[in-house]
């Protein structure tokens, strides 16, 4: 019923979309992106009805086609994570009023949908109370499998925070993939992603890589390079990175090595060939870096 009403306001919505996207053209928050460059959509179809939105501590690209974000971008630092170790507080999920009605998800779309409201930029990353409140915008939320959201994905998020604390600074792009011929759709036209990814870039070491997990309760994940992720997602998350950093995946923290170790979770398969090629890659990069340093 609600959806039908919205359709009646299609023309008004269209006019608003035009307005919104011209406003969005000015909306830029380069400090949240690696090398100041926002991800690039390599699958041109993803670009339909997208609106970039800046928040205090993250940026999203929202799709009016899926009524979800396609990705969120954050810059985590040792200091921001220390600030994020939060005091208790109350927040609430809310519709993103900067987006037109006909393009955005509503609260009731998710109620009794069978899916969790999964954050792309996690509330637990947010350095201030206002940033945490903003993370509950539905423009930062996707329908996520309950087991994934509360298990493996929560562990990947925590592992990412620990890595940011160890390394000092990490750029993160968290996003969704819609693959296959047909998609699941919940109320209000919200599409359910088939996979989620979390891509990390360490500006100090120059390394990057991404976690990739299916949006189901299998608790499986894969480590992929930025090049491989671009192929799978149709999104180049770190367009400013040199070819070498894109071609091989950095060693990602094992989400199972977290504080919560109960239950069996399968490990990603890794052969000695993977290990050898990773070590070789690392050695070659180091030699190159040292060489460049000695020249300049």
């Amino acid at each position, binding site marked *: 019923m609600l959806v039908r009403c919205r359709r009646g306001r299609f023309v008004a919505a269209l006019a608003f979309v035009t307005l919104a996207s011209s406003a969005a053209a000015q909306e830029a928050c380069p400090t949240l992106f690696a090398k100041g460059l926002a991800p690039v959509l390599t699958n041109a*179809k993803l670009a339909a009805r997208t609106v970039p939105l800046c928040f205090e501590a993250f940026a999203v690209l929202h799709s009016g086609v899926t009524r979800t974000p396609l990705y969120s971008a954050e810059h985590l630092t040792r200091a921001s994570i220390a600030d994020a170790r939060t005091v*208790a507080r109350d927040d*609430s999920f809310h519709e993103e009023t900067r987006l037109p009605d006909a393009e955005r998800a509503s*609260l009731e779309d998710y*109620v009794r949908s069978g899916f969790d409201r999964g954050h792309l930029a996690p509330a637990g990353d947010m350095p201030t109370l206002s940033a945490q409140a903003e993370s509950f915008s539905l423009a930062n939320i996707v329908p996520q499998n309950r087991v994934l959201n509360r298990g493996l994905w929560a562990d990947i998020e925590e592992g990412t925070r620990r890595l940011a604390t160890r390394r000092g600074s990490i750029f993160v792009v968290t996003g969704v993939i819609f693959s296959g011929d*047909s998609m699941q*759709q919940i109320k209000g036209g919200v599409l359910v992603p088939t996979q989620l990814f979390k891509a990390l870039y360490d500006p100090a070491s120059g390394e990057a890589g991404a976690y990739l997990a299916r949006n189901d309760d299998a608790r499986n994940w894969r480590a992929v390079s930025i090049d491989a992720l671009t192929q799978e997602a149709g999104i180049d998350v770190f367009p400013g990175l040199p070819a070498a950093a894109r071609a091989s995946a950095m060693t990602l923290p094992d989400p199972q090595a977290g504080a919560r170790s109960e239950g069996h979770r399968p490990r990603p398969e890794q052969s000695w060939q993977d290990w050898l090629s990773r070590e070789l890659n690392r050695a070659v990069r180091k030699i190159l870096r040292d060489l460049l340093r000695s020249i300049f």
Partner: protein
Amino acid sequence: MPQDKPSRRTPKPDAFEPFADDASVRTIGALSFENGTDRIALHGSLDLTRDKAGLAQARLVRDTLEAIVKVLEADDLPEAVAEAPDAAPKSVPNPFA
């Protein structure tokens, strides 16, 4: 009298009222209470440390649970709320394929 959809009710800022809405979330450490009109989801984890902060957090967990129990006790409860989603997700063609 037509009743407003529960999820449309905007929760009061900074107030977690058990079962009053489908939007509010109380976060204590990394533990969250996600409110709902027919279920409250608890997820995450929390270290209750043997110090003053631990006591404050333990009290807040207790107060939150107490408020939940109070609402449940005052309710005329069914045997069980529906476990299945309102409607199974629809299958639609992938717009990006």
